[in-house]
Each structure stands twice: as structure tokens, then as C-alpha cells.
């Protein structure tokens, strides 16, 4: 029945089937574009390696002077004192407090916002709210730092709540950092939840599930890998956040046992100590890099754990 016969270079003047297959694919312009793109890709790799090397070299010098065990498990951080000691635990506790408090604020608020936007809000409302939310992520952290120091700590904690706290606290820094992270967690989680096919929600609804059940038991698990990625990004931002903690958490390196105490975080120490007056190769100079390396390793471990967790629990669709 078919009238489509295979063409065999008929006499009809068809150009089909003529010409070699081995024609040059790329024009000169394309080749230039390709080279530029390759360079761009290579540059990012080179820069990353450069950063790692720059962190590693001074750190190695540091660990030649300070035993790694003393650094990781020492409980007194006093790198600039005459009887210097380099136990990083005080810095780590302060970072743990601020990050932990930030996540306690950011995860419920961020996921709540994401669930509302993805599952409950009218599409028009979502179209309006989401860009506003993402705009919040662009507020400079120094503004948040000022807010934490001058309003949350000085006014809310001390005046309104009459809490027993000084000029700085890890609580104020953590709470404000949490507010800062909310848009990140909300926006990425919302993307993940919106990407869950509508047919899943319909299937659930057709079984007589209500919207909350569908959200919690179908959409949420299906979006889990994206949601965890959002939370991990939040943790990474919390661990790495500098300005808020440098301004509001305080500058005294001590093991923090009470969130109303002040404490110096790892990033806070680097920000305060790296003022350019440490001589290259000196122990103070190398200390900065050792702390930086530790931050880098902690972030790496968090990322690794989260990848494993996501693999274990995700419900791929």
C-alpha cells in the first residue's frame, strides 16, 4: 500500500544521498566557541584545585608546629596569647550552636512555606509570593548582622524578654541566620515539590486522601531528595556564614554551653583575625588556613552524608 519506495538516487534530480558523510562538522566560529567553553570549564576546576592547595600548604606548616590531635580536641583556643593554645573545640561549639539554632528556625519555616506555596496556594498567589521570597535571599548578610545585634539581641532579648545575656549571643546570631536561610530552603524545596507529577496527587486524591495526607505521604517523600538538598545547602550556608556571627555572636572563643552566651565561631575567628597584619608563614597566619581547612572538610562531610541519606530514602519517580 505504501508509496514510499526506498530512493536509490533516481533520475529525478534529487540531491538526497549525495555528498560524503565525512564533511567538516564545525565551522571556525564554532571551534572558537568550543575552545572558550572548554577554557571556562577548565578554569573552574583549576581555581577549585588552587583553593585547595592554598588551604593545604599553610595548614601543613601549621600542623608541623601544632599536633593535629591537639588542634581537633583541645578545649582552649588562644592563638594570640603568649602561652598560645590551639584547641579548636570552642570555635566548633559556637559554630554548632549558631548553625543548629538557625536550622531549628529555618527548617520548619522553610518547609512550611514550601508546602504552602506548592500544595495550597492558588497559582496566582504563588507567582507573586515566590519571587518575593527569593528576593529575601538577596539581602546582604551585613544587614542581617546589624539586625541581629541591634534589634534581636539588644531590643528583643534584653529589653522585651529581659533575658540574662550580654551584648552578644549565639542565640541572636543563630535565629537571624535561620531567617536568612528560610528563603533558600523554601525556594529549593518548593521547586522539588512542584516537580512531583500532578498524576501522583490525582492518584492519591482518587483514593480518598485529603490534601494534607497527599502532601505528607506522597508529595513529600517523592520530593525528598530535593528537600534534603535544600536543607544541606542551608546547613552549608549556616556553617559558612560569617558576617552575622562576626557581628552578633561575639568575639570570645569559649566552649558554649548556653545559647545566651557569646561565642566565636570558626568563620567569626577567621573574619576577626584575618586583618592582613599576620606575617605570611607565621603561626597566626597558618592558623587561619587550618581553621579554613577544617570548615572545608566539615562542609564536605555534610555533603557526603546527605548524598548517602538521599540515596537511601528517596522515592524516585
Amino acid at each position, binding site marked *: 500500500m505504501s508509496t514510499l519506495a526506498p530512493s536509490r538516487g533516481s533520475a529525478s534530480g534529487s540531491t538526497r544521498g549525495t555528498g560524503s558523510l565525512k564533511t567538516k562538522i564545525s565551522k571556525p566560529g564554532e571551534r572558537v566557541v568550543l575552545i572558550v567553553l572548554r577554557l571556562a570549564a577548565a578554569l573552574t576546576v583549576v581555581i577549585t584545585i588552587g583553593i585547595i592547595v592554598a588551604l593545604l600548604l599553610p595548614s601543613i606548616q601549621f600542623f608541623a608546629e601544632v599536633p593535629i590531635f591537639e588542634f581537633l580536641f583541645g578545649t582552649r583556643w588562644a592563638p594570640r596569647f603568649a602561652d598560645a593554645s590551639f584547641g579548636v573545640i570552642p570555635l566548633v561549639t559556637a559554630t554548632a550552636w549558631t548553625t543548629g539554632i538557625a536550622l531549628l528556625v529555618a527548617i520548619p519555616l522553610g518547609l512550611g512555606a514550601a508546602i504552602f506555596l506548592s500544595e495550597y496556594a492558588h497559582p496566582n498567589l504563588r507567582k507573586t509570593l515566590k519571587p518575593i521570597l527569593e528576593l529575601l535571599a538577596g539581602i546582604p548578610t551585613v544587614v542581617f548582622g546589624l539586625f541581629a545585634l541591634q534589634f534581636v539581641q539588644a531590643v528583643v532579648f534584653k529589653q522585651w524578654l529581659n533575658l540574662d545575656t550580654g551584648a552578644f549571643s549565639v542565640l541572636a546570631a543563630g535565629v537571624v541566620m535561620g531567617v536568612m536561610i528560610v528563603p533558600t530552603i523554601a525556594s529549593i524545596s518548593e521547586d522539588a515539590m512542584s516537580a512531583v507529577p500532578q498524576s501522583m496527587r*490525582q*492518584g492519591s*486524591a482518587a*483514593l*480518598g486522601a485529603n490534601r494534607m495526607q497527599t502532601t505528607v505521604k506522597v508529595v513529600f517523600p517523592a520530593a525528598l531528595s530535593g528537600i534534603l538538598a535544600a536543607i544541606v545547602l542551608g546547613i552549608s550556608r549556616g556553617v559558612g556564614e560569617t558576617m552575622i556571627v562576626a557581628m552578633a555572636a561575639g568575639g570570645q572563643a569559649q566552649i558554649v554551653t548556653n545559647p545566651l552566651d557569646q561565642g566565636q565561631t570558626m568563620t567569626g575567628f577567621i573574619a576577626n583575625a584575618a586583618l592582613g597584619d599576620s606575617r605570611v608563614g607565621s603561626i597566626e597566619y597558618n592558623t587561619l588556613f587550618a581553621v579554613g581547612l577544617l570548615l572545608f572538610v566539615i562542609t564536605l562531610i555534610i555533603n557526603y552524608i546527605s548524598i548517602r541519606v538521599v540515596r537511601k530514602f528517596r522515592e524516585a519517580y
Partner: protein
Amino acid sequence: MTIHAMNSNLSVPEQPAQRILECEKVNVFYGDYRAVTDVNMAFGQNEITALIGPSGCGKSTLLRSLNRMNDLIDGARTEGLVTLHGENLYDKEVDPIAVRRRIGMVFQKPNPFPKSIYDNIAYGPRVLGMKPSSMDDLVEETLTRAALWDEVKDKLKQSAFGLSGGQQQRLCIARTIAVQPEIILMDEPCSALDPIATSRIEDLMRELREDYTIVIVTHNMQQAARVADRTAFFTALQDETTGNRTGVLVEYDKTTKIFEDPSDQRTEDYISGRFG
């Protein structure tokens, strides 16, 4: 080519003996657009009713109005009466979620949850707060009922996404019957499946008819002829007032009658392949 109804089952009464679900002057709108106009029909208990017709004739829209799935679509609105055992599903005090517990739905594309086979079945009973004496037994019974047990009994904890399309669709049917609905709506359940998988689903439908009432939308006329006790033919007409095309019910009768001796010329044209 003429299609002969294969289940030329003389036992199908002229009228549904027991009307479980009835539509009275049902109109469905999407915003200002009227997708379905003035449908009146009754679905018989423990019968399979097929809704056939060309694309855009409103048959899927009508199907979704039968368990208020249209409520999930922004701007969709249903007018008229849809009654289950005489109770209007669109009454203000009726909870659409309660409606869907009684009237389940199977979709065009298999849509298992991204969970294990076991959890796909257990999801509905858990969500509805059913307390079976043993969930394991319920899952086994349900999968057996859906003719899937032998194929999946050794991989209940594996993801449902590892199943073939036909198995996934039978899993979706199993998931639906796990919550014991009275009626199962099927929206072109075989359109994404090969002929062998299709034939297994059709066998399953005939078995399920013992316990459930089934309404199926299909583009496949042979399928309607093979499985349905009654068939309703819809077509799209110009709406007199707006000029838009809207779905209307042309003819609704025993499947044998529709395929062998249709009363309406449009039905005959459609089933003999002259249009649509």
C-alpha cells in the same frame, strides 16, 4: 468493518436493574467553556458501562465529574445532579473526599506512587484509617484479586516503578480496590499499554464486575464491544448559544444494540469508522 459485541450477553436487561449512579442534566464547565451539556444517564450496579466517542466529546470530563475529580481543576464547575444511591454528590454538605472513597478512579497513564509495591496497596487503607486485622493479608488478597500476586509476590518491597506498564496499571487497579469502593472509574486505562497487557486488564475488568460497578472511557471501540454491558456514545456539537463545541450524549443502550443496531445515524457512522 462491523464490530460485534463479543459479550453478546443476553442477560443484560433492557434497563439497568439497579441504578447505582445517575446523572441528571449534568453540565460541566471549564471557566466559561461548557465541555459537557445536559447529560442524563444511569449506571447499573455490577455492570460495565463504556463511554465512547471522538476526541473532545467530553467523555473524560463527564467521567471525572462522577467522583468530583474535576474539583481539583481550577475553574471547573459541575451543574446538575449526580446521585449515588439517590444522594447528590454535589450537595453542599457532601465532602468530595468522602465521594472519592466510594468511587475510585484509574487513570490513563499508570500512576503508581514512587513507593514499594506493598506500600502502593497499603497506602489507601492507611490513609483512610482502615484497620485490617492484617495488612499483609489485605495486600495479598488485593493483589490476588487484581491478578498480580503471582507476578509480584517475591518483590513486594521493591519499587513499583520496576514493573512493566501493564503491571503498573493492574497495580493501580489493585490500589483502587484495596479501599473497597463501590464504583471504579477508568479513564482510557489501556491507552498506554500493548495488546497483551490490554487483554489482561479487560479480563480483570470482567472479573471485577462481580463486585464492582465499572465505568470506562475508551477510544478503542473494540474494547467497549468486548467488555461493556452498556455503551454510551458521545459526540461534540456546536453549542447554540456560544458557538463553542460541547460534548453531548447521543445514544446510550446495551452494547449489543449500539454496535449492531444503533438508532442514531451518528452512532452508526462512528462505530463503522466513517468519522472520529
